[in-house]
């Protein structure tokens, strides 16, 4: 990660306060707990430990052990319990420590959370929010580093969000809790320390649209989550070459905001999709396929993909870096796409 701060387009007025992605997320949880009695947080080490990534630090003292609920290491049971509690009228926030661990609860997410509404003929809403850490960049090797949100985005019946900015870290949770369907929020582990400022009264944001983080005319760099900073850095580098790149932050991975994605490519005629997930069958593949379906006649070059290398994440720093989408690779892909054909 470059640590490049990317500010949301939502930012408007009032006093600005310094914060971090982690604090913004904590503020969002705190606000939800204050505003709605039905909300509670549960997961491994969310209470006394303060959260594996310190997101919920201090909340136990504030809200007590009933609402900041430590669970045993039973992903399937506590995710399923979150589904059951949502069925019975609560608004649970379930935290799963990392996306790799979420596979232990995949049955509950897929076979119950995503499915109950349909197989009950519309009777069983599951207003549940599941938060989890995703992504690499911290040298935590092959069982803590993957970006599997693309898999989840395959499943009809759930919403999948990827907050990449402070404003989204602060604002997505509340909107997600208002949604009657299950929402998965993927927080990239390298973002928690990201500093920046937010308006003192920052609050809920929409969770349905993608955002153009940087307007440009020559190529659309489409990304989300942890690679937004890298992608913006690549856009800076491209500007030095006279290539004016637009950066699109998907924000919602399911459903995808086709209008914003295709709209951007209709302006720039070229697309580079950046996705930390493995290339094969990736979210990037889905975005490219949709560009074929929806923006084919606007394309002036083949869509490019910059994805994670197809390897379980290795431990050493240099190999991990080599496995992740880097700004240089994005720049190279954008250059290929633009070629000499700037219009």
């Amino acid at each position, binding site marked *: 990660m470059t640590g490049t701060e990317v500010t949301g387009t939502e930012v408007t007025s009032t006093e600005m306060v310094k914060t971090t992605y982690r604090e913004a997320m904590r503020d969002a949880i705190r606000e939800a707990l204050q505003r709605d009695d039905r909300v509670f947080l549960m997961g491994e080490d969310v209470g006394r430990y303060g959260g594996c990534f310190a997101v919920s630090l201090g909340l136990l003292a504030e809200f007590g052990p009933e609402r900041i609920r430590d669970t045993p290491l039973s992903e399937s049971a506590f995710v399923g319990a979150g589904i059951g509690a949502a069925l019975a009228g609560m608004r649970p926030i379930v935290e799963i420590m990392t996306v790799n661990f979420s596979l232990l609860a995949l049955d509950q997410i897929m076979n119950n959370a995503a499915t109950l509404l349909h197989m009950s003929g519309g009777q069983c809403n599951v207003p549940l929010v599941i938060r989890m850490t995703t992504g690499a960049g911290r040298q935590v090797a092959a069982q803590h580093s993957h970006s599997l949100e693309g898999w989840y985005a395959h499943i009809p019946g759930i919403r999948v969000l990827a907050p990449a900015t402070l404003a989204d870290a602060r604002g997505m949770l509340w909107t997600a809790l208002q949604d009657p369907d299950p929402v998965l929020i993927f927080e990239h582990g390298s973002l928690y320390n990201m500093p920046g400022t937010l308006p003192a009264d920052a609050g809920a944001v929409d969770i349905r649209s993608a955002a153009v983080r940087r307007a440009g005319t020559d190529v659309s760099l489409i990304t989300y989550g942890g690679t937004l900073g890298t992608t913006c850095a690549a856009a800076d580098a491209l500007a030095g*070459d006279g290539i004016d790149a637009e950066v699109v932050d998907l924000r919602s991975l399911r459903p995808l905001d086709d209008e914003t994605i295709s709209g951007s490519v209709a302006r720039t005629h070229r697309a580079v999709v950046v996705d930390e997930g493995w290339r094969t069958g990736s979210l990037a593949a889905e975005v490219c396929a949709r560009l074929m379906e929806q923006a084919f*006649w606007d394309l*002036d*070059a083949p869509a490019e993909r910059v994805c994670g290398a197809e390897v379980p994440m290795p431990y050493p720093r240099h190999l991990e870096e080599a496995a992740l989408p880097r700004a240089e690779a994005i720049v190279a892909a954008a250059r290929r796409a633009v*070629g*000499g*054909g*700037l219009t």
Partner: protein
Amino acid sequence: MPVLGADMDEGTILEWLVKPGDEVRKGDVIAVVDTAKSAIEVESFSTGRVERLVVGVGETVPVGTPLAVLTEPGGERAQPAVPAAGTQRTRRDRRAERPAQQVPAPRPASPVIRHRARELGIDLAALHGTGPDGTVTREDLEHAAAGPAPPAARQPAAGPEPARSRRKPAPRAGRRRATPLARRLAAELGVDLAAVAGTGPAGAIRAADVRLAAPGGERGRPAAAATATARSAAERNQSMRQAIARLMARSKREIPHYYVSNTADMTHAMSWLRDRNREVDVSQRLVPSALLLKAVALAARRVPRLNGYWVDDAFRPAEAVHLGVAVSLRGGGVLTPAIHDAADLPLGELMARLRDLVTRARSGRLRACELTDGTITVTNLGDQGVESVYGVIYPPQVALVGFGRIVERAVAAGGLVGARPAVTTTLAADHRATDGYAGSRFLSALAGLLQRPEAL
């Protein structure tokens, strides 16, 4: 035949446990049926006397087929034992609606066959296969491609019309590679793609190429798409002239030029080039310029003091050789885009870059870095028929190499006069950075390199 599982379509009677005249009660096991999974007992859902067995042992029938007829107790009305009367009709009707089931649907053709069919332009769906389960074989394909319809004996009565299977091979040549946007624009602007020069990978036509080819060139763009950059050709020309004027005046004002020249024998180079070009595809052929450029790049590496910049009263050598190439524009003016790392490029690649650069320079599609990265520049006016050119250095560069036309000259060698192709090479260099000695070394090295074209 009852449905005994979600995946069961048919069953085979293995054994009858009742015979005509037997009394059966609801729930009694009356037969054993072999399904895809295993042998399963079949129960009766009715009570009555077995009138007759409809399906014999060993017979395979689809689910829904009556297996036996029972007479209801106390009545003469016979009913099929399995399944119940009302439902059996449903099943039978459903089957009747799908007569195609009687003829097994042809299996899909293999990838090889599909590929060959595409090559031949034949619609596989319209073909009747003679392979196992109606698979289309290579023979079927070749037959369809060759001409007359397959012999009647090969066709089942219900088979599709073979006449439809014959198609003219699809034309393969003549298709231009063009991006979707370029195609759309061409249609909108009324541009014939066949007449457009593509500047994309492998000559693909891109939107910019179409716009350039459109009536009125850049002005052919739809008004909505026009931007501030879409200036008229005259305006562009004017501003380019001014830029050249500024740069060249600065060069002559600031740089103390010195000049040296030499004649390089091109005999080996030209014959090597001829031999090489004879062996390769047209698209891979080289022009002499490629050899000249590569030789300059290598010579610049040998005399590094000529490759770099004069900045802040000091010479700064460049690490790589980015070869500026002077490209004269059709509407007047000249640009000197650079071929990056020219010394390391194989001739073919260098040739491709040169072509690409010239096309893009002429269509105004150069990248900023290409215009600023040159470390030494070459101007070749040979095509224009001149014998030699003494150029003006592009500041902050310190050297400019000029080539004239390659012509046959009378050359004395070893006491004999012969006609040999040769080229006049010149060097304009910045006296602040080097002296005539370096310039001479450079041109000698260049001439030497051109004697060993195979090493370029």
